[in-house]
């Protein structure tokens, strides 16, 4: 695996060259917090960010996304027929994505890119996107990535890993996509004698800073129905107000709703993020609702992330330990606590 050195003085120029062929996204400060946004001409990603408030999932999977269009005008030959919309999937790159957020795309990919069905919108968008990660030297106190199958320098899911070393970025090229991006940026890559050692050292130092942990080793062996019927759910869910914050800030949540919106005689079919926290999510036309109470809905969220996903894919939990839901839950429901309750549950 190749590691090159990018002189920080050359950083902006390379990004400018890159912006000719890639649409660039990156963290930027918005009022009191950071978000991922499309970078304007000459705007640099703010790599000082600890963690953005929202994950970059919307770069690949927008909160509202058009799927089809239609006309209801019966004078038109194709009235009432849904038609695909031309969509733009030119190259784009997220510069300064955290390793946890990049890994999250891989977890979500199992859902959108399944053997039986392929979600064309997500897949095309994902394939068009190059993920340039930024190693996390100063993780937040509620990051628990190292025990959630990820880590501050985790490479899985990234195309390039950037590591901030004094006046240079070390760039570890992980995939061909990453290689192509570097070529387009045209940084001087002659000095590719840089070794992997500083990265390894910084990685160890960063991992040591993460003190928040979860235990997940027993989840797979627990009985689904026993966990489902466990008595702790009432206590876990009591404070929940059933807002969608945890699911919307989460990089690994993927649920959506499909809606038609008509204006005059023309309209679109679109999808919008949805949340298992909302009663309407599972509300039958008949009035029946299998998840009618908030306890059932809270249980669904945690069971999905920490049990159903584990059983379905046999590849860890549906969580990368980014800590956003912990920080932003308005009533302090903490997935770390629930995970430990589930992992240590005995009948």
């Amino acid at each position, binding site marked *: 695996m190749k590691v090159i050195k990018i002189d920080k003085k050359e950083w902006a120029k390379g990004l400018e060259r890159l912006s000719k062929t890639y649409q660039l996204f990156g963290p930027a400060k*918005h*009022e*009191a*917090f950071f*978000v991922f946004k499309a970078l304007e001409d000459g705007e640099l990603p703010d790599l000082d960010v*600890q963690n953005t*408030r*929202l994950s970059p999932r919307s770069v690949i999977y927008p*909160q*509202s996304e058009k799927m089809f269009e239609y006309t209801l005008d019966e004078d038109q030959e194709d009235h009432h027929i849904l038609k695909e919309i031309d969509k733009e999937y030119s190259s784009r790159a997220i510069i300064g994505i955290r390793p946890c957020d990049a890994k999250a795309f891989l977890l979500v990919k199992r859902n959108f890119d399944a053997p039986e069905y392929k979600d064309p919108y997500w897949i095309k968008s994902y394939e068009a996107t190059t993920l340039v990660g930024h190693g996390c030297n*100063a993780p*937040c*106190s*509620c990051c628990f990535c190292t025990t959630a199958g990820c880590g501050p320098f985790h490479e899985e899911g990234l195309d390039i890993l950037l590591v901030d070393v004094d006046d240079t970025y070390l760039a570890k090229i992980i995939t061909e996509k990453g290689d192509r991006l570097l070529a387009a940026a045209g940084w001087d890559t002659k000095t590719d004698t840089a070794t992997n050692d500083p990265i390894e050292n910084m990685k160890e130092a960063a991992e040591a800073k993460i003190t928040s942990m979860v235990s997940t080793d027993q989840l797979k062996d627990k009985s689904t129905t026993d966990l489902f019927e466990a008595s702790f759910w009432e*206590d876990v869910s*009591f*404070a929940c*107000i*059933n*807002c*969608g*914050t945890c699911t*919307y*800030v989460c990089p690994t949540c993927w649920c959506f*709703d499909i*809606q038609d*919106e008509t204006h005059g005689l023309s309209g679109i079919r*679109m999808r*919008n993020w949805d*949340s298992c926290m*909302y*009663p*309407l999510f599972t509300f039958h036309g008949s009035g029946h609702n299998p998840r009618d109470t908030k306890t059932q809905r809270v249980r669904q969220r945690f069971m999905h992330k920490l049990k159903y996903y584990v059983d379905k894919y046999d590849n860890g939990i549906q969580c990368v330990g980014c800590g956003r839901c*912990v*920080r*932003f839950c*308005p*009533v*302090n*429901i*903490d997935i*770390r*606590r629930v995970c430990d309750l589930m992992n240590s549950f005995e009948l």
Partner: protein
Amino acid sequence: MLSYIDKIKEISRRLLKESKVDMVIGFRKGTVVMMNEPCFVKTVADVDKLVWDSNCGINLANYLANRTEKIGIVAKGCDSRNIVTHIIENKIKRDQVVIIGVPCKGMIDRHNIEAMAEAEIQEVIETDDTIQVKGAGFEKTLDKKEVLQENCAICVHRNPVIYDELVADEVKEQTDVDRYEDVRHIEALSPEEKWDFFEDLLSTCIRCYGCRNACPLCYCPTCFVDESRPQWVGKSQDSTDIRTFHFLRAYHCAGRCTDCGACERACPMGIKVRLFTKKLEKDCLELFDWEAGLTLEKRPPLDTYRPDDPDEFIR
């Protein structure tokens, strides 16, 4: 205010022991700084997990609606006003609740404090008047009065208006506050400026409905934004739909909102949603001399008719 907890526990133990209530609703220690989690306590043994400090801003009245048990509930001034509103609106019966009143000196604004710190705050130590925050390479002691939630800083009903037990002597109510400075500022804007102001205000809304769901007033079985027959509001990130949600929600709270700040506290995007409800609160005060949740004896202005209504069309 920190000493309240002994009394809260003593009362809770007594209520549970004497079976006066089936559960006490209060707060337990949070897992992150400046956060506590609403919880219920059903046994005397569990009472010790209750806490009280300046991180108890969530309005606990939100946890009362439609419950059938007998409930002891810890209530600040604003919580008590929302309990009054709940009783008036038949969401809970007066004899179903034992209100453990807490004279309140205000809750702290964690988002604001976080924004003031150089780096992530890892530890917070509270005394009666100060908040000491610590993080990697910094330490700061803040005057609590300076870092209150905005609604607390201008609160004029810190003492519970209705209670069965009181955990301490009443605190002095604030009289020298200007409650509506921000509203007047917006009222003075031109229509174009107002439009821009609100567009900017709501530009980061992700429609998580945290504001609505944290609000004790928002207990409708189906909110108008969720209604599908007819569908009043689109479900996308369209700015008209987002505005419609916020404006209409605020109107639904007119004459009912106690400015408890739950909505603003809950918003993950830091949107000042109280600006909407406060305008209507101000109107209710000016037009009907009404403040929500102060008495069980009078009906709120929007669900009653008075011959001296200020508007001509209705007289």
